[in-house]
């Protein structure tokens, strides 16, 4: 490095490099400048100066210098390396890899560059390249532990576990017998456990056990050792030994459900689907009875039997389980029990049990059969539990009655409830929140309800109460508070504010990009610290990252926004233009100037603010370079709305969804919508095929299928070659769709209807399609919807009828009637009908929906509640409701 310079300058060059490494950028800059005085075109110096400037936030200069440096000295690996580093700092990893490769061509054995390259390859999952680079590093420096380990991990990631084991064994062969020294025992132990997990992965179970016995003394993480041992023994079918270890593990943590399940497996008493024969149940019951004697303080041992017991035994066990928790007052009791509601029989037993308990406490103050006086709060908790029970069963009336009773019993209990009445729920929760301003959970719950009720402004105010600086909205973003961003995105979307909606959705997407980014530091850190098992599982997690539910929601939300933008291009600009065109030219000019001035002012202010922040953070002198937050120039997402090609943007996110949530119906429904808008017939067809494959009886799948072929049938016959090609593909594929065999679309629709005759959403889909296919049958279609029957749920002996329809479906149907059928009268009568089913719904303006009537005790002085009461849930007008992926109609589609 620094070659071709005279001694003095060569020394200065060393100073630049050292200053860069020690982050003394000013010093480095000075040294660079004094070299450049004499040798203004010295490539490596120019490059290093650029790199230094890059760290001082002077990006454009940096790129300029680095590029000039490279041009002056194309044969220097330093210049290429620096160029790569620059790209890396801007997260342009592909470009960075190219630069490194060029550098290595010049200096193939440069260890630093090889190491940097290997990190990027790991990040980009260029696994075969990663193996190669790691091998080179090992060949160059075989005495480094990290190089051995790195090579092994590379093989493992590249799905070659047995090779990885070989590498590790070879590495062990280089070690002395008394290895490891005291201060590296943990690292060594982690390596051994990693190797054992590799054995396990390759199915070499006996080998794994053998290894574990041999190395037991060197493994310091005894818990992992035992867990792994027990797990491998179980796989080997050495049940007795495995069970013994699991029991000893239970002694350490008697509430780990995994241990219980494993013991069941050891004893051949486990079934994946939770189905057991009477015989099994008896054996299980005996098992847990004995476990309970041993681990009496475990709550898992009492809870698990509720899953497999049934009938009287279930009732008895549930009774024993619930009583002490009611006495103690455990608010989460219901969510603990709620999985049991999957079995309708159990729900009925629970109901009976709860009512019996309530009655007994009410009359005697004791639980049935007990003479011990219960504390008064038990009654309240019991009523609370019963209320949640009815809420779960959809019997909102009784649920609300119960909760009211509980509230009047103990009005300060923090109780929340909702039944399709979002503003009321928000007001109630806000009241609960005001009871204890220091309760983070209530605060969050409150914000969520407000967002559901589209009270975004209020919600934001409330949400920031719990952020650090109190008034910084950005803080929520920094904390990656995604549920908040998602919910406000959805809310803005409902209100038609696409800019802000997009902004929120994209913020979530950004978080995920950041998370992918965050793994970068671990590639070197984990190899050094030997936390290999954690490292590999982290990488696997990262690979699945974008399949996460929040990302899915955000991407779907963004795609919907983009489609809506496409269907009705940016309102703000067209409206503005309309307004402007009404004005005389002179005034128009004035207005324009005014706008420009305002924009400029806003920009200036933003910049000033940024400068302020920069200076203040510099003066704060906190050693480390502080990240100054760039001021958000587009707080309302107005720029986001004005993009050229919203569909192309949407496609970006669609691709991520298709790669990561291929099993979701919504993904393909969105793909269908998007591609049909883009006139990509074949891609649209693919989406239809996927939908049918995933769930042919889903109403959305059905809609897409019919819409697609309806569209195709109505197209003019193909003209160009490419059109003919598409046509041929469709003709060839068509017979594969079983649904269509020899039937007209109308017939397909009819048979779909017959199959799912009893379901509201299916009927609605069929009606919508009937209207699409045969517009003259509009009345018949509407009648189809109107004739739907809201059945009383069967097998329920409880007081008050529980009905099958849920409120969201009914709202969707209402929107369908308004937008597709455009029949206000029918829609209104539907609304009236639903208002009866959902008396608390503000959407249907049910009889009990007025917030004031329901706000338990409206305190006069809390004016906030008063304000809330006037806010109604806004209807999404215009397009169909897209909350749950209902499909829009297609218009003006043709092959061009």
């Amino acid at each position: 490095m620094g070659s071709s310079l005279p001694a003095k300058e060569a020394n200065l060059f060393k100073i630049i490099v050292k200053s860069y490494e020690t982050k003394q950028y000013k010093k480095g800059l000075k040294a660079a400048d004094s070299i450049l005085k004499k040798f203004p075109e010295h490539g490596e110096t120019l490059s290093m100066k650029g790199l230094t400037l890059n760290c001082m936030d002077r990006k454009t200069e940096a790129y300029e210098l680095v590029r000039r440096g490279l041009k002056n000295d194309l044969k220097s690996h330093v210049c290429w390396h620096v160029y790569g580093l620059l790209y890396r700092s801007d997260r342009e990893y592909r470009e960075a890899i190219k630069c490194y490769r060029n550098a290595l061509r010049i200096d193939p054995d440069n260890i630093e560059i090889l190491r940097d390259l290997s990190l990027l390859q790991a990040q980009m999952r260029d696994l075969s390249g990663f193996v190669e680079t790691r091998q080179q590093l090992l060949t160059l420096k075989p005495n480094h532990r990290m190089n051995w380990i790195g090579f092994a991990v590379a093989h493992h990631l590249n799905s070659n576990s047995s090779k990885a084991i070989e590498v590790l064994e070879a590495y062990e062969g280089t070690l002395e017998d008394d290895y490891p020294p005291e201060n590296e025992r943990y690292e060594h132990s982690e390596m051994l456990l990693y190797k054992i997990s590799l054995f396990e992965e390759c199915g070499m179970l006996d080998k794994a056990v053998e290894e574990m016995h041999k190395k037991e003394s060197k493994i310091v993480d005894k818990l992992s050792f035992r867990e792994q041992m027990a797990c491998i023994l179980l796989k080997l079918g050495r049940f007795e030994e495995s069970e013994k270890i699991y029991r000893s593990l239970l002694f350490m943590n008697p509430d780990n459900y995994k241990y219980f399940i494993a013991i069941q497996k050891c004893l051949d008493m486990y079934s994946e689907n939770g189905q057991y024969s009477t015989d099994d149940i008896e054996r299980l019951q005996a098992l847990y009875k004995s476990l309970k004697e041993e681990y009496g303080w475990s709550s898992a041992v009492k809870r698990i039997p509720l899953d497999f017991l049934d009938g009287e035994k279930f009732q008895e066990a549930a009774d024993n389980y619930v009583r002490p928790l009611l006495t103690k007052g455990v608010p989460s009791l219901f969510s603990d029990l709620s999985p049991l509601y999957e079995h309708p029989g159990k729900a009925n037993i629970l109901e009976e049990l709860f009512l019996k308990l309530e009655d007994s406490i009410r009359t005697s103050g004791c639980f049935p059969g007990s003479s011990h006086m219960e504390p008064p709060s038990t009654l309240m908790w019991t009523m609370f539990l019963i209320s949640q029970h009815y809420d779960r069963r959809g019997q909102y009336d009784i649920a609300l009655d119960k909760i009211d009773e509980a509230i009047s019993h103990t009005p300060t209990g923090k109780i929340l409830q909702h039944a399709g009445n979002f503003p009321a729920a928000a007001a109630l929760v806000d009241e609960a929140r005001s009871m204890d301003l220091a309760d983070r959970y209530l605060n969050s719950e409150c914000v969520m309800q407000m967002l559901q009720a589209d009270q975004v402004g209020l919600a934001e105010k409330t949400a920031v109460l719990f952020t650090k600086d109190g008034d910084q909205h950005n803080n929520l973003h920094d904390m990656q508070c995604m549920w908040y961003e998602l919910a406000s995105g959805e809310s803005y979307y409902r209100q038609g504010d696409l800019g802000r909606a997009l902004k929120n959705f994209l913020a979530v997407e950004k978080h995920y990009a950041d998370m992918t980014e965050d793994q970068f530091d671990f590639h070197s850190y984990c190899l050094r610290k030997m936390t290999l098992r954690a490292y590999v599982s982290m990488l696997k997690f990262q690979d699945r990252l974008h399949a996460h539910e929040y990302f899915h929601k955000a991407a779907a939300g963004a795609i919907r926004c983009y489609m809506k933008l496409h269907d009705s291009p940016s309102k703000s600009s067209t409206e503005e233009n309309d307004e402007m065109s009404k004005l005389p030219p002179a005034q128009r000019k004035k207005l324009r100037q005014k706008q420009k001035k305002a924009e400029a002012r806003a920009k200036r202010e933003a910049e000033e603010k940024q400068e302020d922040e920069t200076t203040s953070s510099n003066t704060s002198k906190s050693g480390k370079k502080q990240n100054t937050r760039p001021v958000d120039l587009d707080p309302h997402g107005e720029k986001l709305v004005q993009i050229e090609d919203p569909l192309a943007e949407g496609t970006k996110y669609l691709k991520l969804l298709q790669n990561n949530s291929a099993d979701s119906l919504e993904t393909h429904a969105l793909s269908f919508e998007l591609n049909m808008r883009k006139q990509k017939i074949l891609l649209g067809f693919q989406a239809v095929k996927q939908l049918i494959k995933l769930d042919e009886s889903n109403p959305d799948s059905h809609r897409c299928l019919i819409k697609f072929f309806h569209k195709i049938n109505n197209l003019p016959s193909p003209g160009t070659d490419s059109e003919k090609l598409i046509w041929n593909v469709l003709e060839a594929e068509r017979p594969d769709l079983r649904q269509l065999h020899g039937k007209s679309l109308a017939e397909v629709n009819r048979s779909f209807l017959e199959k799912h005759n009893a379901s509201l959403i299916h009927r609605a889909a069929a009606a919508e399609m009937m209207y699409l296919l045969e517009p003259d049958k509009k009345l018949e279609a509407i009648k189809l919807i109107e004739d739907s029957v809201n059945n009383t749920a069967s097998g329920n002996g409880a007081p008050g009828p529980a009905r099958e329809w849920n409120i969201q479906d009914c709202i969707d149907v209402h929107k369908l009637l308004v937008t597709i059928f455009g029949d206000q009268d029918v829609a209104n009568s539907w609304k009236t009908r639903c208002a009866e089913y959902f008396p608390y719904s503000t959407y249907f303006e049910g009889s009990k929906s007025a917030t004031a009537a329901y706000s338990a005790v409206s305190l006069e002085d809390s004016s906030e509640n008063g304000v809330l009461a006037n806010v109604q849930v806004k209807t999404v007008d215009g397009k169909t409701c897209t909350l749950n992926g209902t499909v829009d109609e297609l218009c003006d589609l043709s092959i061009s």
Partner: protein
Amino acid sequence: MGAGEGDASATKEKGGVDRTSLDGVRDNNVMQLKKLNTVLFPVRYNDKYYKDTIASKDFSKLAYYSDICVGAIACRLEKKEGGAVCVYIMTLGVLAPYRGLGIGSKLLNCVLDLCEKQDVPEIYLHVQTNNDDAISFYKKFGFEITKTIEKYYKNIMPPDCYVLTKFIGQAATKK
């Protein structure tokens, strides 16, 4: 203002005291006191009441039964002529289902102990003349009737009240 309503007659089982804990009244939880008062008393208290309560610091307490707020004592600190501070109990109350568990006594005792520690010479309250339960409750703690004020209450019958006072630090009261 200030109908002493504590009618917790601590005669029943005392099991409740173990489950009860006390906490001060602050901005963050004053809404709980408001909520309690709407249920406990027929009077709606004004903002000054709550300000005084919070200002009295440790002399006002909320009682939590298994983490549920079920009762409160709210006091006001008053300056007497000569500079001595005395305590006026504005309200003391416990939710109906939780009465008879000794929670009221616990609240009052807490305040009395504090008075003793801080050398507060006098603690007093007003009580409607027909509220026998309350009167006997306070008498058990060494309060005595020191005055009768006629037509103290405007909207309730009888309108007269007693002033119940406990002098602290003097040789134990005559009782």
